[in-house]
């Protein structure tokens, strides 16, 4: 009898062992930005917790694959081609994703997402998810982007006050203000004065001249990307926009040598702002804070006070401006991976706000506290007690933003470290809302036409060159010059590319 029991026990044990799920390895990409201590990416607190909270219960061993952020595209292409890509990889390069999807390089996630991705789908939302659909199949899961604005305008409040001017609310008021800056020189800058600190015509002004348009109209626009929002010579309104820029230049309101400034100028504007020579400018979001100019401004120009404005109204009274699409990075699974289901499960698990917050910040009461506004305030800890997460969004790859339930909180969290007596939180809240107001995102074409990939870059470079010439031209010659250049640009491929893009748009939107 005893023996029988033993034998049965042994058999049961064997069966149990045989049935125990086999451990699988899930390889996950992570961006390495070179700014965290060794080991944090692969084995820091978030990595360990993800293993414990997601990995262990699902019999999954998680392996992190760091990829250098500056070379992510090259490295991804290398790993894809070598069949060595992680199960979960990602890129911001939408064209590359489209290429892989159309060439069969990616796993189809449609079914997994329907089965295991309920939380994930509702977190990201259909609008954003659709950006990952190619030929009717979900080949990529885009992250959700919280803050869409990119291009903001600031003006010197202290100069306006000195001149008794209101904060500009329309293009005309803005123009009047900068003309007064030039005429009265309220900052006593002399020859250094830069009434408008823009390299030519800012995007926000240009967009305010565009005639009201539909999504289909915009599908034919060459360019709009986050670095080249205004690079099309033939959008209705372009002529008037450039003529306005030409006028600014002729009146000496633009920087003297703006046309000679390098692309992505990092020197001239920053130096001029730091010394208090600039009256107004349009640039990336909270430019003086992003580029850490505030200490220099406070030292060289203590009276300087910047205020965000949104004055560039179009014919409908709106203030349209280029904004990002509502998506962040594209998450995808290479076709060679056997773990597509696990990737979806993992992202679905991450989409829970609680898990997301824990990955980024650790535990409330141990690693962080909540302030009166409900914002996370990390505690000042040292040594092993720190929740050293590195670059928090690189881990929570489904969200480009902060894990809060309201946009206001997300903005306040992002700008918290900039707040001081002169610039209270409200300034940044206003600014971030302005840069997003009446936003015009790029139109998505799932399969962009060949002519665009072949000629798009050339056309945009050419347009940039022409626009510079036109803004710098003698006002009397502007009209004839514009008509000639626009025709030239259309003839060299502009017209063809626009027609092709519209054709693709119509095909993809046929119901």
């Amino acid at each position: 009898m005893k023996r029988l029991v033993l034998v049965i026990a042994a058999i049961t044990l064997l069966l149990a062992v045989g049935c125990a799920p086999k451990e699988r390895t899930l390889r996950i990409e992570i961006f390495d930005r070179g700014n965290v201590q060794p080991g944090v990416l692969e084995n820091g607190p978030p990595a360990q917790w993800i293993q414990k909270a997601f990995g262990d219960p699902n019999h999954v061993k998680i392996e992190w694959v760091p990829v250098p952020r500056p070379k992510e595209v090259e490295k991804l292409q290398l790993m894809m081609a070598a069949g060595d890509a992680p199960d979960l990889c990602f890129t911001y390069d939408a064209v590359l994703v489209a290429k892989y999807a159309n060439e069969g390089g990616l796993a189809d996630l449609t079914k997994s997402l329907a089965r295991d991705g309920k939380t994930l789908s509702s977190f990201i939302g259909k609008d954003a998810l659709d950006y990952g659909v190619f030929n009717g199949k979900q080949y990529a899961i885009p992250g959700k982007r919280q803050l869409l604005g990119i291009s903001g305008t600031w003006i010197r409040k202290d100069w306006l006050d000195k001149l008794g001017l209101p904060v500009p609310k329309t293009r005309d008021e803005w123009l009047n203000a900068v003309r007064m800056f030039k005429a009265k020189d309220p900052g006593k800058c002399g020859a250094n004065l830069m009434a408008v600190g823009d390299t030519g015509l800012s995007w926000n002004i240009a967009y305010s001249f565009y005639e009201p348009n539909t999504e289909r109209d915009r599908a034919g626009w060459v360019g709009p990307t986050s670095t080249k929002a205004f690079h099309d010579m033939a959008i209705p309104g372009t002529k008037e926009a450039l003529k306005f820029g030409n006028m600014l230049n002729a009146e000496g309101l633009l920087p003297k040598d703006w046309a000679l400034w390098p692309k992505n100028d990092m020197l001239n504007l920053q130096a001029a702002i730091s010394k208090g020579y600039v009256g107004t400018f349009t640039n990336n979001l909270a430019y003086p804070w992003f580029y850490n100019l505030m200490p220099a401004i406070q030292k060289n120009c203590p009276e300087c006070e910047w205020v965000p404005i949104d004055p560039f109204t179009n014919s409908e009274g709106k203030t349209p401006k280029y904004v990002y699409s509502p998506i962040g990075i594209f998450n995808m699974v290479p076709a060679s991976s056997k773990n597509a289901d696990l990737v979806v499960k993992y992202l679905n698990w991450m989409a829970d706000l609680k898990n997301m917050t824990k990955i980024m910040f650790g535990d409330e009461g141990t690693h962080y506290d909540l302030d009166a506004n409900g914002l996370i305030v990390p505690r000042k800890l040292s040594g092993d007690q720190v929740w050293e997460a590195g670059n928090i969004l690189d881990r929570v790859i489904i969200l480009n933003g902060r894990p809060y339930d309201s946009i206001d909180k997300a903005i306040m969290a992002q700008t918290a470290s900039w707040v001081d007596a002169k610039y209270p939180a409200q300034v940044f809240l206003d600014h971030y809302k302005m840069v997003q107001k009446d936003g015009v995102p790029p139109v998505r074409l799932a399969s962009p036409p060949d002519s665009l990939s072949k000629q798009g870059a050339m056309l945009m470079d050419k347009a940039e060159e022409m626009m510079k010439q036109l803004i710098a031209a003698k006002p009397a010659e502007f009209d004839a010059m514009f008509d000639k250049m626009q025709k030239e640009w259309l003839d060299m491929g502009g017209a063809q590319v626009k027609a092709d893009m519209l054709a693709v748009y119509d095909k993809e939107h046929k119901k």
Partner: protein
Amino acid sequence: MRTGKSRVESVLIAAVLAFAAALCLLPIVHEIALSLSSNEAVVAREVGLLPVEPTLESYRQIMRDGTVMRALGFSVYLTVLFTGIAMLLTTICAYPLTRPELRGRRGIMTFIVITMYFSGGILPLYILIKTLGMLNTEWSLILPLAVSPFNLIIMRTSLSTLPDALTESALIDGASYFQILRKIIVPLSLPIIATLSLFYAVGRWNTFQDAVFYITKQALWTIQLKLSYIVLNNTQPEVFIAEGAESRLSIVPAALNAATVMIATLPILVAYPWLQRYFIKGAMIGSVKE
């Protein structure tokens, strides 16, 4: 010679040379000045050739962030190890190619020369490194570059200027080829060895592309890789912050940038003058056939 030229000519030549030297030197002086200036002065573009509001803060910050010094240390270690291995391989490859006893050395040489002009590209190389299990090891940064055909040819040419009789008499005395190489050839070739070591060392010091592709472990980061990150983080902070990097970790002010460049450049800059005499001597070897 001197009598043939007028004073004016000499002054003119000196002036042109001084101008050219200044062109090379001034950017470095500017960079040094930046690294020693305050952030505010750097941002406001007030720094020329002399530091403004001099401070060592940038260097202090680098010392505090252990990763720069760690990368520097690894780069020094890697460069020394690499140079040793590369010289060893280059020497033991070059010597047989000078010996008439080796049959088919022309063929071997052609084979080697071809690799100077054609390469498989990064993808096959990556797959090879991966298959050999060398990803994320220092060997991926050493072996692929360890024999440079160009240096090999210089080495072979240099060794072939040594009299044959040396090897022949040693052979008669019963020495093996390895003994001959070690005890006769190498001691006689120190200038060329020093020169090529410098070629190899500078090459390794400056290369960073391979580390981008083969290395993900931070412990194996070279200083050039670290430097590229710092410069990039500094030029695109808005991308950085928009992608969620915490600003306390990310923004590297411009002065810090310059200080890192100085730290990455100094070691090799210091080594140069010491090795320069070998450099010139060695580079001339084999240039004239007797």
